[in-house]
């Protein structure tokens, strides 16, 4: 780790740092302890903003704009150069987010996304310079090779879903398409392993293990490299943190680092509060009143089919754990349902283990945390699955039907569907919450357990208010009687 001296006033660096740093190694910069925290918080705002954007399913064009705005708003700095703040904040957050698998995964995704869109904003020359820093060992496809597969290359270029590209990409493709006819465009022949995202999106022609990557897709290559470097670096950082730094810095950096990680992620509902205990009989009652749509659907299907596939068991099971369902009760609950379909014995043999695993009683004893909205929205339910986010994964018809069962109709229904059309799935859920409960929800829903807790709080409040009203009415009546 770099040398950091407390309470130094000057920031200096004698090295020439390019505009878009690759964070390959921690440079020997000095920074004030205050800045250590402040810079990190500003960067965290950017990363959080990106996280929100992704979970709302923003298109690449929109993400590009968002990243630009977030960076401008948070990362400009007066006393130090912007680059220094960039580098320092990145390395501080590495410390914060290296410590568990989940934190690493989140950080990796956000930093890679940030890098991708910042890279795209650079000039072509700057991009080429950055590319050379990555030392990509690929050759351009020879003329002969290109001739052979020309038809296929054209076909792929035409098949790419243009809604997934930014404006800049699309223009390039239009140019490259006509240039293809002259076979002048350059394609890199790259082993398919190096461009997993292009392969996954079927955005390249692959032949005998080689992907033909167009020049403008090279971003993907660079981003993959970036991600891979950062992933390894995070593991190393964690090792250093646990072995030396945490102890060394326990009076200075460690408290800051530990505070930073919890402050922005919000409660993860892994430790349900004591008062929120719930029994099996309660579940049926509260399912109707306080479950968000995703969990209602899973719950209904479970009752109907007496079965759920793995994805559904995880999503619903962890949610119930967060709600306060104890392990013994959970086992009884799932057994009662599954027995109708597979029998009690088979349940014990095949499914009980999984439930115990969720509660951290088996295997490596990880106490799994209930899924957040972002995670659920990004899941990919397949045939026979019922998990995922209904606002995203249901057809309009099915969603309307499900919502009207919840009591949403008329104008509100249209407002919710409008949000869905604009891919604001969490806003749609928030709106549903507001309609169902007759109140406003300013914080916005970003976790199914949050929906549940807020709902229960409102209902309790209503009950209290209701009781109070009853008492008041009774008193009033008795006054009137007295008066008469």
């Amino acid at each position, binding site marked *: 780790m770099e040398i950091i001296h407390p309470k130094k006033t000057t920031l200096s660096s004698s090295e020439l740092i390019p505009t878009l740093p690759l964070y390959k190694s921690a440079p020997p910069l000095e920074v004030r302890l205050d800045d250590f925290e402040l810079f990190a918080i500003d960067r965290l705002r950017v990363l959080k903003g990106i996280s929100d954007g992704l979970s709302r399913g923003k298109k690449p064009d929109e993400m590009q704009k968002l990243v630009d705005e977030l960076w401008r708003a948070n990362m400009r700095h007066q006393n130090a150069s912007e680059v220094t703040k960039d580098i320092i904040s990145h390395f501080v957050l590495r410390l914060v987010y290296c410590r568990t698998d989940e934190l690493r995964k989140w950080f990796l995704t956000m930093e890679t996304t940030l890098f991708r869109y910042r890279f795209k904003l650079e000039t072509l020359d700057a991009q080429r310079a950055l590319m050379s820093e990555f030392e990509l060992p690929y050759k351009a496809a020879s003329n002969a090779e290109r001739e052979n597969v020309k038809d296929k290359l054209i*076909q792929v270029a035409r098949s790419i879903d243009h809604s997934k590209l930014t404006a800049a990409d699309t223009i390039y493709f239009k140019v490259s398409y006509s240039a293809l006819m002259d076979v002048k465009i350059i394609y890199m022949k790259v082993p398919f392993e190096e461009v997993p995202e292009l392969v996954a999106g079927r955005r390249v022609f692959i032949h005998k293990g080689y992907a033909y990557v167009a020049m403008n897709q090279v971003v993907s290559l660079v981003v993959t490299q970036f991600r891979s470097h950062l992933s390894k670096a995070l593991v190393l950082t964690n090792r250093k943190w646990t072995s030396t730094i945490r102890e060394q810095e326990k009076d200075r950096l460690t408290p800051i680092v530990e505070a930073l990680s919890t402050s922005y992620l919000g409660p993860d509902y892994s430790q349900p509060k004591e008062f929120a205990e719930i029994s099996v009989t309660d579940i049926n009652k509260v399912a109707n009143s306080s479950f968000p749509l995703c969990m209602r659907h899973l719950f209904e299907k479970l009752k109907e089919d007496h079965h759920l596939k793995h994805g559904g068991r995880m999503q619903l099971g962890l949610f119930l754990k967060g709600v306060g369902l104890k392990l013994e009760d959970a086992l009884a609950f799932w057994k009662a349902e599954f027995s109708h379909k597979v029998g009690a014995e088979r349940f014990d043999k095949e499914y009980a283990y999984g439930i115990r695993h969720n509660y951290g009683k088996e295997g490596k004893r990880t106490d799994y945390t209930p899924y957040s909205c972002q995670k659920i929205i990004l899941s990919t339910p397949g045939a026979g699955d019922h998990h995922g986010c209904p606002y995203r994964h249901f057809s309009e018809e*099915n969603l309307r039907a499900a919502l009207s069962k919840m009591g949403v109709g008329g104008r509100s229904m249209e407002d919710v569907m409008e949000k869905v059309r604009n891919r604001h799935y969490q806003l749609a859920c928030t709106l549903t919450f507001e309609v169902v409960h007759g109140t406003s929800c300013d914080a916005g829903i970003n976790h199914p357990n949050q929906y549940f807790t807020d709902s229960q709080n409102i209902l309790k409040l209503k009950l209290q208010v209701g009781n109070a009203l009853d008492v008041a009415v009774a008193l009033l009546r008795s006054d009137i009687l007295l008066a008469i």
Partner: protein
Amino acid sequence: PWSKSHQEISNKGGDNMDVNQRVLLPEGFNPSYLKLYYGKLFPHAEIFKWMSYGNDGKHPACDQSYFGRREFSYTLENDIYIRFQSFNSAAQLESSIKNKCPFKIDIGPVYSVDPAKRHAYAQGSDNVFTPVERELVFDIDMSDYDDVRYCCSGADVCLECWPLMTIAIKVIDTTLRDDFGFNHILWVYSGRRGVHCWVCDGRARRLSNEQRAAITEYFRVYKGNENSHKKVSLTGPALHPFLVRSYTEVLNSFFEEKLLPGQKLLATEERFEKILQLIPDDAVTAELRGKWLENRRSSISREDINVSRWQQLKHSLQSGKTKGHGLRRCVEEIVFSYTYPRLDLEVSKHMNHLLKAPFCVHPKTGRVCVPIDPNKCEEFDPTTVPTLSTLLEELNMGGLSEDIENGTFVLTLFYTIVYLFVDKL
């Protein structure tokens, strides 16, 4: 080598059993049959050779620890499941299997260290016990197609719906070879209602989880379930060459020649409504519905009613009369929905996923999980796959010798595949 062990088997059969009397074994599966099977038929040595990938040799480049770092897991009688079994030699593997007589054997990844020693390494978050190699695998299960087959459902398969598996094999095998450049691919019958695929090239074994996820995404076309409306959406001015190839070489012909008439996809109102639902143009669907509700029997022509209705549908959509947006590729979307392979994505994405070993016997059907030659997959018939009892019967009768032509003893196929690719790995 195999001919020698072949002789041994026939001799042993002769010594222990009364060769002249045909002993009819009761159908099904039980532990004593299994014991005999593991004793005389299960190809322990071949599995070892396969899993060693050449490291069982003597020259200096061989990694002696390689086989010992592979995880096997057993499901024993009484559903006891034990993981992280590992062995250092063919003999150890063989004696363990014969000893424990597992109802099912799964194969996991090759780890960084011998799984038996994993506890010494998994300290904190510094996980040095981690998978380092694992075949790229695929699992296709007929029950994922229940919404497009009417002949069976759930665990059953028959010759009417089996073509769906044939399609999956052809599409995936071609793509793995032509697009991804893999060569050493083993297809195996899962014993009941599906097929497994093992891609054994070194390059495949060394793929990371992210790369495996990318490959499965490349294959993914069918998105959604009963909750979403349209499950196959082929947008864009052109289709990716891989999809075009799959369609023109496999999907279309199987759909029109086998599935359409075999599953009677347009014969009744209930069935044709499901297809009409995939057409986003009310005018077109109304017209077709009208025609079909009137002509419940095709009057003059001897052509199958499903085939003729399909021609009508194609004509309506492709004639150019209607110019709706969603109609451009409607015909292809319908064909894809009913035929395109449906993979269990999670199986392929993770290196640590355990998959059943070839040549296990399925406890519910008694059928042996035999390899399928992708070049002859159209001839494969799941209803005639040897069962534990038929194999043992033959063994009793003193010969598994000349019956190779009939394919009743399929180990030759396995030997061919194994020796063909093991040598080149």
